[in-house]
């Protein structure tokens, strides 16, 4: 919960967090090392100095650290786990639903566990999706379209097999499809960041919500265009968020573009923890105002109401969370003992 100076309470849902193991012990090959090293560069490049972690902590952190950084120190009321399996790079996977669910058990009512699927798993994968739904009651999946699998270096949302999985999602009530569009590792002659396949899938499945992570960066312009066409396309702010500190002017430009092309109901706050910590992101975001010239030029303002929607209300709507009753539940929450 974030409290404004006037005492108003803002319910915060961090829509994109990870509990990963990128340690050398878990790395399967050079790609595993390069992957976590790249994340660490993201972390070092955009975090304020006081929030830069030592490398070994960044590679692998424990559950108490995570709960503390989010719920005690970081104003977060609830967080959504977005798994990233990367099973070709890491022996036990990088950040799997099963690992995430362990943590969710320790801190009930705090975490939403999302699943993942990979259409290249065929029928077996459909059965696994059913199992995830039965075991964890998942309401969302994270898709990592650039993930390697055998000789395949990626897939598209518009592939016929992906449609089969999306049909299964409809059937199981898994409504939220989080799509990650990069960093790509596919030597295709096309642009692998291209978000056009989201457009097709969103039209074909109007009953599902497609949350494009990193607001389509590095193809923000194409993402914005698609989102104007498809009312069920949303933008997750992971990776865009830390610019609020490092390059506030650019953050202002991006937020105003998003508010112009989408609307305030389709933008979701996300830290991408542990790449960045929610504490400073939220503090800087709450203190942030659009520069006057940008407001004048675009006619866009970033009011407290809009901030509240971005920080929690929009995600709550997608995941069927009643904020008032959830607040009551969390007041009585004793689950944070080990973390504070």
């Amino acid at each position, binding site marked *: 919960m974030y409290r404004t100076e006037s005492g108003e309470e803002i319910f915060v849902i961090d829509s994109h967090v990870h509990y990963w193991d990128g340690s050398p012990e878990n790395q399967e090959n050079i790609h595993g090392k*390069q992957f976590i090293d790249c994340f660490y560069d993201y972390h070092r490049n955009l975090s304020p100095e006081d929030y830069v972690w030592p490398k070994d902590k960044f590679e692998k952190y424990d559950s108490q650290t995570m709960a503390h950084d989010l719920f005690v120190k970081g104003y977060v009321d609830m967080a959504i786990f977005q798994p990233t399996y990367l099973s070709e790079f890491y022996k036990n996977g990088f950040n799997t639903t099963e690992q995430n669910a362990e943590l969710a058990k320790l801190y009930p009512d705090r975490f939403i566990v999302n699943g993942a699927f990979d259409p290249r798993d065929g029928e077996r994968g459909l059965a696994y999706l059913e199992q995830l739904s039965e075991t964890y009651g998942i309401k969302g999946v994270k898709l990592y379209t650039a993930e390697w699998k055998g000789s395949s270096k990626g897939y598209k949302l518009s592939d016929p097999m992906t449609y089969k999985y999306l049909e299964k999602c409809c059937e199981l009530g898994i409504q939220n499809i989080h799509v990650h569009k990069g960093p790509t*590792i596919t030597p295709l*002659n096309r642009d*692998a960041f291209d978000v056009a396949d989201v457009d097709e899938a969103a039209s074909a499945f109007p009953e599902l919500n497609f949350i494009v992570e990193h607001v389509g960066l*590095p193809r923000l312009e194409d993402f914005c265009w698609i989102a104007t066409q498809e009312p069920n396309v949303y933008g997750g702010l992971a990776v865009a968020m830390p610019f609020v500190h*490092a390059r506030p002017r650019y953050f202002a430009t991006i937020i105003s*573009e998003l508010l112009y092309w989408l609307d305030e109901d389709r933008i979701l706050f996300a830290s991408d923890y542990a790449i960045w910590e929610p504490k400073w992101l939220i503090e800087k975001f709450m203190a942030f105002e659009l520069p006057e010239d940008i407001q004048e030029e675009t006619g866009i303002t970033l009011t407290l109401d809009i901030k509240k929607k971005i920080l929690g209300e929009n995600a709550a709507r997608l995941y069927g969370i009643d904020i008032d009753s959830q607040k009551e539940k969390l007041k009585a929450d004793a689950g944070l003992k080990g973390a504070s």
Partner: protein
Amino acid sequence: MKTKVDRRKEVEDRLAQVMDPELDESLIELGFIDEIRIDGRRVTVSFKLPTYWCSPNFAFLMASDIRDRIRELDWVDEVSVRLKDHLYADAINDGVSKNRSFAETFPEFSSGELNQLRKTFRDKAFLARQDRLIRYLLKRGMTKTAILNFTIQDLQELSGDYPALKNHIESYLSIRRECLGTGEAHDTAFVKKDGRRIALQEFADYLKETQRTRVSMEFNAIHCRGLFQTRYHKEEE
């Protein structure tokens, strides 16, 4: 034979023409060129990118552009391009040095050449450069009608009157030539990327689109510069 200093300068001038297609900035400006070695008629250029994972298709375009631009120098017999610290460094270096195309270098993972990809990003660069220039003109108090009526020649003359605008004007006219051909002096300066005219009543909406493209490209450029700086120079700071 030219002096070593002259030859180095010529190589650098050529490299200044090699762009990162996603960012529309030259590899020299971005600091991606790692080393230039000149041994007689042989030139070796090594370059680095912000991450190990940067898209191999764009990396291939940059590597082959380096080769092609340097090869244009009449005193050069052999060009060797070395991409470093990248997932596909070996494959790309090998393919480029053997004059293989992208599809020949990655027979399993590509289904064609990079021409369309290059075109897509040159179109984006066209919009971004156009947006930057138009906004400068608007800020200087020029009306939308006047801007839409500018000819290529008007822009060239403006370049003399406003030295601060010179770079933006040259940069826009150069990509306009590249995308739409040389054109005549009296041709309309600001047109859509397919060459059609922009009507006054659609200008505001059009500028929203060009802005979207420019913002995205500029954002990527700061992001990539930051990552590059972090990857290679963090300890030195």
